C-alpha cells in the first residue's frame, strides 16, 4: 500500500481522491513506523517550508523518509512536498530540507510585470525528453497543470529535471525525477485528467521499479 504522509497542514482529501480515481489504494499516516514499512510514500503539502520540516521533525519522519529514499523505494513529493526534497529553503528565514535531491528553494522574483507572484494558475508543462522518464509517460507535451506557489526549486541537477515551465523569460523546474525519487511543483490532484495521468504514471512506476533489499 501507498502511504500518504499527513503533515497536519492543508487538505489531504483531494490527494486521496486523485489516487482513488486512478484505482490505487492509499492510507494516511504520520507514523514513522508505518512510513518505514510502506511500499511507497507520497509527501503532499501546502503551506510554509519551515512549518513543513518542523512537522516532519516532530513526528520523527525525517530519517525514515531519507532511509526510504535511500532504499530505492518510491517517494513522491507534491508541491511543498517536492520542495522539502531539496537541501534548503529561503522561505521566511533559512531552513534545511530533507536533502534527498540537490537544489535550493528560492522565491520567485520576476522582472516582468506580467508575471505575478504567487504563480497561480495553469502553466504548460514541458517534459524533458529522457529515455527513462516515467512521470510524463502518459501525457502529451505541453499539457497544462495547476500551480499555486511563490517559491521554486533552483539549482537542481539538470539530469534530475523531468519537466519545465516557462516563467519570466526563462524556465523553472516543474518536476524532478531521479530513479525512485519523484517531485512535482504543480497540484496533480487539481490538474484534472492530465494530473491524474501523472498520478497514474507514478503508480506504474511503483509497480515496475525493482525492489532493492
Amino acid at each position, binding site marked *: 500500500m501507498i502511504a500518504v504522509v499527513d503533515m497536519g497542514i492543508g487538505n489531504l482529501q483531494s490527494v486521496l481522491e486523485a489516487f482513488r480515481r486512478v484505482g490505487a489504494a492509499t492510507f494516511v499516516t504520520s507514523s514513522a513506523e508505518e512510513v518505514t514499512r510502506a511500499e511507497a510514500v507520497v509527501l503532499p503539502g*501546502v503551506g510554509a517550508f519551515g512549518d513543513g520540516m518542523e512537522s516532519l521533525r516532530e513526528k520523527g519522519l525525517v530519517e525514515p523518509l531519507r532511509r526510504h529514499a535511500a532504499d530505492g523505494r518510491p517517494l513522491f513529493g507534491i508541491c511543498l512536498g517536492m520542495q522539502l526534497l531539496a537541501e534548503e529553503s529561503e522561505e521566511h528565514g533559512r531552513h534545511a530540507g530533507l536533502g534527498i535531491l540537490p537544489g535550493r528553494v528560492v522565491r520567485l522574483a520576476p522582472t516582468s510585470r506580467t508575471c505575478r507572484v504567487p504563480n497561480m494558475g495553469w502553466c504548460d508543462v514541458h517534459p524533458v525528453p529522457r529515455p527513462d522518464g516515467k512521470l510524463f509517460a502518459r501525457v502529451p507535451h505541453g499539457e497544462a497543470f495547476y500551480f499555486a506557489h511563490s517559491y521554486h526549486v533552483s539549482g537542481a541537477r539538470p539530469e534530475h529535471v523531468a519537466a519545465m515551465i516557462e516563467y519570466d523569460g526563462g524556465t523553472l523546474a516543474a518536476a524532478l525525477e531521479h530513479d525512485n525519487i519523484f517531485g512535482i511543483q504543480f497540484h496533480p490532484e487539481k490538474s484534472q*485528467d492530465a494530473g491524474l495521468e501523472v498520478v497514474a504514471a507514478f503508480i506504474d512506476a511503483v509497480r515496475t521499479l525493482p525492489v532493492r533489499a
Partner: protein
Amino acid sequence: MVRPRLIPCLLLKHGLLVRSQEFRTHQVIGNPINTIMRLSNWSVDELILLDISREDVHDLRRDDLAVADIGATAVEVLRSISRVCFMPLTFGGRIRTVEDMRLRLEAGADKCAINTRALDEPSFVAEASRRFGAQCVVVSIDVKRHLDGRCEVFAEGGRRATGRDPVAWAREVEALGAGEIFLNSIDRDGGARGYKLDLVRAVSDATTIPLIACGGVGKYEHFAPGVREGRASAVAAANIFHFFELSYPMAKKACLEAGLPMRAVKVNSPYFPREPSYSDEQKQRSLWRLEVREVDEEKYSGKGRGKVRWCTSCVYPSISAAPLDFDENGVCTGCQVSGTKHWLTREEWERRTDLLRDLLEKYRCRDGSRYDCVIPVSGGKDSYFQTHVIKNVLGLNPLLVTYNGNNYLDVGWRNVHRMKEVFGVDHVFYSPSVDLLKKLNRLGFVIMGDMNWHAHVGITTLPVRVAAQFKVPLLIWGEHGYLDLSGQFSMDDFPEMSYRDRLEHFARAYEWNYMVGFEGIRSQDMIVYKYPGDQELYDLDLRGLYIGNYVYWEANEHTKMVMETYGFEGNTEPFDRTYRTMSNLDDMHENGLHDYLKYVKFGYGRATDHVCKDIRAGLMTRDEGVALVRKYDHVKPRDMARWSRYVGMSEAEFDRIADTFRDPRVWRREHGQWVKDNIWD
C-alpha cells in the same frame, strides 16, 4: 507563462445555490452538488464558492432527491462538495478566525477568500498568510461606484460602506501578504453589462499579485476585455454559468476565439463522467420503504422543526418542490420575478420577438437536409401555441416530438394527434414499452415518491435525442416552469435547457442508470431516457430555447385562440385537485396522484401553484386563493384506482409508502394523526 483563467463563481445561501442581483435579490438555482459535478465534467480552470448565508444553517429543504443530505454547516457542505469538486476551489464567506480558515482548508478548499474580516482587522491577512501561505489567501474586494464617480469598498456583502478606496486597499492587502485579489463590482452584479474595466485595470496596475475580475458578465463576449483591457489574471462570473447548456465550454470557446491564451475546451473527462454512478448498495437501500410497517413517531414528533411560512403576496410555502426565496417583506421570488414579466412593455416584447427571429434565422436549414427545429409537444394548449408561432407566424419547418407516457386522457389524445393535421407538420410520437412504464411507475414511486419520474425524464430527454439524431441544432420549448412559478431567473437571463437542469430538477438526480438492475431492467431498455453526450451537444451546438422568454405568454388568451383556430379541445370534466381545467391533458396522474404526492410530501398541491399564478396575474385576491387551496390541496384523486390496477399495488400499500415521504419540516403526529400548520390558521 501562466494562462488566463476562466472562473465560475457560485453563491451558496443556506444550503442552496442562488442567483444574485445587485447583492440583494437571491433566486434559488438549486443543489450545489449537481452544479459542481457538472462543472467537474468540463475541466474548469478554477471555482469560487461564496457562502452568503446570514447564519451558519444549511438545508436543501426537501428529502426526496438522490442527493438530499449534504450537511447542516458550511464546513459540512464544503466537505460534501469537495468529494465532487474536481478543480481548484476557493471558498469564501463568514470567515472570522484562523481556525475558520483551517477548517475550510481541511474540508477541501484550496484557498480562502476573506472580505469583511480583512477590512475590520487588516492584520488578519498577515496572520493567515503566515500560517497558510500567501497562495491560500484571497482577499475579496466588493466595490460600489457612487453617482459622483468615486469608488468605495463595501463590507458585509455590500451592506456596509468602509470609506476605503479600492486601489489603496488592494495595495495594502498585497503588502500584508494576500496572494490574490477577487474584485467584484456591486453595481454591475446581475446587470449583464460587462466588467467595470477601468476599475479592474486600476487595481491590476497597482498590484503584482494575481487579480480575478467579477461582476457584470451577461454574455460570453464580456470575458475577454477583462484580461485584454482590465489586465486581470482571471475572469469570473456567476449567473451566466447557470443558464446554458455547456456554458463553461462555450464561454471558453468565445475567449479562445477572442485570442486569449486560455486552456483548450474540454468535454468528456475519462476520469469524471457526466452520468453519476450509483453503488448497488445505495440502490438496494433505496427500497427500504417497501419494508416499513409503522410510522416513525420520533421523526414526526415535531421537535426541532422549523416553521413553514407562506409568501405574503401569493400562497407559496417556504418548504416546496420548486425552489424559492423570500425578501425582507416576506414576498417570494416567484412574485418578485413574475411582476417584472408583467411590467415588460409592448416594445420590449417586440424587441424580444426580433431576437427570436434572428436566432431562428441563424439555425434555419438552408439546403433542405434537415428540419429547422424540434418542438417537444404534449398536445396541450402550450404545444399548440408554440407550433402556431414557429410554423405559422415565423415560417419555420419544425419536427414535433412527443413522449407518450401511456397516461393520456381521451381529450388529450385527440388533441395531440390532431396537430399533424391542423399544422401540416411531421410528428414523431414515441411510445416506450408499457411493461417498462409499469416498472418505472412502481420504482419511481417507491424510490422518490413520484410515479411520473419516467415522464419528467422522458419529456426532457427524448426530444433532445431525436434532435441530435436528426442533426437539428435547435429545440423550442414552451415556458421554463420555474420562471413563472418560483422566479428562478431574471427576465434578462434567457435561460435555455441544460443537462444539469434536467438531471437536478426533472430527474431529482436519479439518472436513467439508477433504474438498471431493478425488476430486470437493462441498459438497452432505457435508451429513450439517455441524453446525448456532451461532445455531440458541443459539436452540434445544440440549444433549447424557451419561447416564453421571447413571446408574450398569456395562457387564457392563447387557449381561446388555439380552440378557435385549430380546434383544440378543452376538458369538459373538472379535475379533482384543481379548479383549472386546461392543463396536463396528456397525463392523468400529473394533476392527480403525482400531485397528491406533492401534498403528502410538502403539504401543498397544484391548486396552490395555480392560485399563485392567478394572484400574480391579478385574477384573484389572496383570500380567494386561500379558500381554493383549502378546498383542493388535500383531495385524494380518483385516478388512484387506475394507477393501483395499472401497476398492481393496493391503495393501502400506496398509502403506507406515501406516508414515509412526509417531510418532517411540514408534518408532525398528534394523537395518531398527521397534522401540519396551514395558511388559514
